[in-house]
């Protein structure tokens, strides 16, 4: 089997036995990266760094206990600060920004022996569901609709991460999820994407979008691989005040747990008007798979679901307008001169931010401004409390919630960009769990009529990623998803 098609788990085994070296594995992925440049998945490629890291891992082999990700090459979303390597958040305003420090999540990966292939593309400041808002150009999905050669979106905001893993350029990649930015692209690209509980991974050194929602997570091609990655990324960090000081369980072991006797909740409010028949059918198939595995299906109600998107589009822009106030052209990033300081701020931010980012900053500024704060922001925080309460009530009756990940398969580049609300609707099934801070995973479960991947989502209780992984592994086994994208490394 080609090295680029190995799972992380298999590569670890072969590296441990000495059958392959990290240098060989890394080189194969660097060749794949070069060969798939047309996807525009990478903003920066770091081949020299990758080979140095890989050779160092190989040289140290056998001298100490093996590390959980020893010798595994990974793609890093360009939202994680990487010391000495340009970090842009997909924005012109950070073009050329070279951090002098390392994010906690990536530092944890390097501590555990991982190798960095490069920094992958994303929607600007992680704001988008298509990867079309990047200042470095859109990412193309490696998948094509049957009989249709139009380029498709990989989903977003972690579009480069998902495309790289699906196209076998990397066996795993980091992502971040604010309203669905890991789960939706994972579904569009036919791979696994896990967003853990808010507070599980440190946000330190990750470029901020909406601080009460942002959470790092992992992409991989199997549930077990995503569990291995998350195990390394997660953990308490005193540098992030919202990081939670609880032990990280053995996620990999959890993927082997039985789902027998688990209660799987089906929220009736997620059966939305206009949901394509094939997505509804796949969802019902998912229920059946769980029944067959010995789990119990229970209908649950999440009554405030219909208000989740509107709530999100107050809370996220409000926090974004506050976080992005730091881009002032003084301390780092783009500076466009003006005759005085205010003019410099206004010119810098007009030139540096793209249309979607400006739209969200303006909405956020408006909902936080004097006279509107109570009507919009406080109101949204109250509805958010109701949405979180819906979930805690539901988890009295069930152990996991099963839903589709997205209301459609991938769409073509430019197909939905004219209408911001149509684009926001992509996240209708992922946003509620984000607002409640809950762990969620997307597992590839089937294909639509055009041959494109569809995902199913599992949502768990706070800090119960283990049950999420157990359920996801059961789904993965039953679905036996084996389709591969049209554009893929040999």
């Amino acid at each position, binding site marked *: 089997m080609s090295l680029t098609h190995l799972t992380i788990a298999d590569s670890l085994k072969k590296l441990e036995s000495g059958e392959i070296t990290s240098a060989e594995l890394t080189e194969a992925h660097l060749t794949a990266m070069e060969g798939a440049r047309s996807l525009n998945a990478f903003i920066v490629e770091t081949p020299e760094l990758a080979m140095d890291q890989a050779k160092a891992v190989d040289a140290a082999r056998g001298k100490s206990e093996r590390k959980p990700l020893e010798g595994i090459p990974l793609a890093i979303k360009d939202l994680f600060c990487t010391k000495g390597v340009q970090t842009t958040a997909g924005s012109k305003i950070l073009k*050329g*920004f*070279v*951090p*002098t*420090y390392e994010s906690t999540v990536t530092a944890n990966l390097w501590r555990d022996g991982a190798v960095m292939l490069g920094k992958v593309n994303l929607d600007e400041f992680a704001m988008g569901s298509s990867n079309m808002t990047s200042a470095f150009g859109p990412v193309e999905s490696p998948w094509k609709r049957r009989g249709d050669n139009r380029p498709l979106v990989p989903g977003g905001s972690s579009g480069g991460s998902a495309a790289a893993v699906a196209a076998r350029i990397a066996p795993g990649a980091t992502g971040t999820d604010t309203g669905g930015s890991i789960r939706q692209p994972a579904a569009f690209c036919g791979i696994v994407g896990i967003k853990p509980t*808010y*507070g599980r991974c440190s946000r330190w050194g990750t470029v901020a979008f909406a601080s009460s929602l942002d959470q790092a997570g992992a992409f991989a091609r199997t549930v077990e691989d995503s569990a291995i990655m998350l195990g390394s990324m997660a953990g308490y960090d*005193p*540098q992030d*005040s*919202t990081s*939670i000081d609880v032990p990280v369980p053995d996620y990999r072991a959890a993927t082997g747990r039985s789902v027998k006797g688990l209660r799987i909740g089906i929220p009736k409010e997620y059966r939305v008007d206009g949901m394509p028949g094939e997505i509804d059918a796949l969802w019902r198939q998912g229920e059946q798979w769980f029944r067959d595995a010995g789990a119990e299906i229970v209908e649950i109600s999440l009554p405030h679901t219909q*208000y989740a998107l*509107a*709530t999100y*589009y*107050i809370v996220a822009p409000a926090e974004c307008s506050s976080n992005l*106030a730091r881009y*002032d*052209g*003084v*301390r*780092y*990033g*783009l*500076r466009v*001169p*003006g*005759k*005085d*300081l205010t*003019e*410099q701020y*206004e*010119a810098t*931010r*007009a030139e540096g931010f793209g249309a979607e980012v400006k*739209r969200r*900053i*303006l*909405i956020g*500024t*408006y909902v936080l*401004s004097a006279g509107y704060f109570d*009507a*919009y922001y*406080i*109101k*949204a*925080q*109250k*509805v*958010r*409390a*109701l949405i*979180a309460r819906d979930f805690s009530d539901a988890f009295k009756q069930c152990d996991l919630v099963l839903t589709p990940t997205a209301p459609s398969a991938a769409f073509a580049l430019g197909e939905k960009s004219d209408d*911001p*609300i149509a684009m926001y609707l992509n996240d209708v099934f992922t946003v509620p769990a984000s607002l409640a*801070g809950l762990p969620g995973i997307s597992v590839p479960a089937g294909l639509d009529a055009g041959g494109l991947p569809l995902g199913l989502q599992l949502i768990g209780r706070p800090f119960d990623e283990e049950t999420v992984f157990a359920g996801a592994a059961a789904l993965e086994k039953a679905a036996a998803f084996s389709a591969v994208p049209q554009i893929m490394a040999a």
Partner: protein
Amino acid sequence: MSLDAAAVARIARLARIRVTDDEKTHLASELSQVMDWIDQLQAVDTEGVEPLTSVVGARLKTRPDIVTLNVTRDDVLANATEPMAGFFTVPKVVE
């Protein structure tokens, strides 16, 4: 339409983003569309509900008040445009 061009100009000024007159008209219609859609929240009964400020309900931890940041002045200035003599620079703000 809930927002007009003048309102957009006021918001853009607060956000320190320059917008042209053409953009103002366009943004007024776009932002109004989003705000009108968001207005559906007004229909939710939130009487007696406390606004949610932390999803995990954890108390913030305290730490000893000691310097832990391990960066030099040069690190901090490394990405600045036109730093001078160990300082950030901005256009003159005092007459």
